[in-house]
Structure formats: structure tokens, C-alpha cells
């Protein structure tokens, strides 16, 4: 039982490490990825509005 508990505990810790690493990788990717609403050089309305509409348009 002690051995099983140690093994389970060991795998649990490794899982935590793996998940934490993945979270770090994903958060890094997200911060470098394309943001729909940024840059918002030309924005109308409150910056803290609950809803943001981003429109991509062409003048022709």
C-alpha cells in the first residue's frame, strides 16, 4: 500500500508539472497570437464596455 501510494503521489506530482507546463505554453501562445480587437487605434465607445464589436472593412 505504501508503495502504491508513493507511485500514485509521484504520478500526481508529474501530472501537475505537465499540466502547469502546458498552461504556461498555452498562455504564451495566446499572448503572442492575433488579437481581434487590438490594436484599437480607432475605437468608439467605452473601453470597459461588456461587448466589443470589431469590424474589418475595405473602402472600395
Amino acid at each position, binding site marked *: 500500500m505504501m508503495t502504491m501510494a508513493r507511485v500514485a503521489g509521484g504520478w500526481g506530482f508529474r501530472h501537475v508539472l505537465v499540466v502547469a507546463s502546458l498552461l504556461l505554453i498555452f498562455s504564451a501562445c495566446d499572448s503572442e497570437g492575433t488579437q481581434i480587437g487590438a490594436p484599437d487605434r*480607432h475605437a468608439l465607445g467605452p473601453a470597459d464596455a461588456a*461587448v466589443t*464589436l470589431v469590424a474589418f472593412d475595405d473602402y472600395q
Partner: protein
Amino acid sequence: MKPVVIEEYVERGLVRFVSRHFAFLGPESIRAAEAAECAGEQGGFEDYSRLVLANQRANRNGGGFADTKLMALARFAGFDTNVFESCLVDGKYAANVQQDVADAHELGVRGTPSVFINGEFVSPADVETVRAALDRALAVSGGG
């Protein structure tokens, strides 16, 4: 679509409207977008954008938005034309426009107008569809 959204949602403080360029219909699309950025430098992005859109022509890239025409529109709108011309000729905002277009491609944008509401693509981008999507988003957020 934009005037309706601004009147019904933005002016009531419910929605933030972000305008970005997807200048994909040729060189005059790109120059018009850069010109709008130059107008923005003088605080006139929205006014100039409306003016450019009101002067759309059927024959794309046929000179309707040649630099001389874009300059004339800036003059008509009352901008400092020396500053505007320098900005346009120097391509001061070319990289910004290119970045917007690159971002649009990366997001899967294929035509205009293309609308995202709280990150969700909304299609078609007509008034009724956008209005319904905004109402749903506001209901979910509790902001309506």
C-alpha cells in the same frame, strides 16, 4: 451597419466599436486605408472614413482613390493638407494597415465587412444579424 450600431449601441455606452482595415481589393484600398490613418492623426478618422465611403466608385482601382483624390478629400474635410500629404506620401501608416490585413487573414477574414462580437465571427454582417448578435451578447454579459 456601422451607423446603426453607433447610434443604437455605442452612443448609449453599451458597445465598443473597433474599426480595422481589411484592404484587400487592390492598391487604392490600401492607400485609402493609409489616408484614413493619416486623417486619424488629426483626429478625423471617422469623418474621413465616412467621406471616403461616400465617394466610392464602381470601378475599383480606377483612380477614384488615387493619392490626388485622397488629398482632395482631406482638403475638403478641412485637414492640414501639408501634414496629411507628408503622412500619405511617406507611407507613415503603411505598416499599420499591413498588420491589420495580416491579422484579418490570420483570423480567417475573407470579405468585408467582417464582424467579430466578443471574439465570435458574425455572418452575414448586415444590420439585422449584427443587431441580434449584439443583443445576445449584451444579454449574456448582463450589459443590456
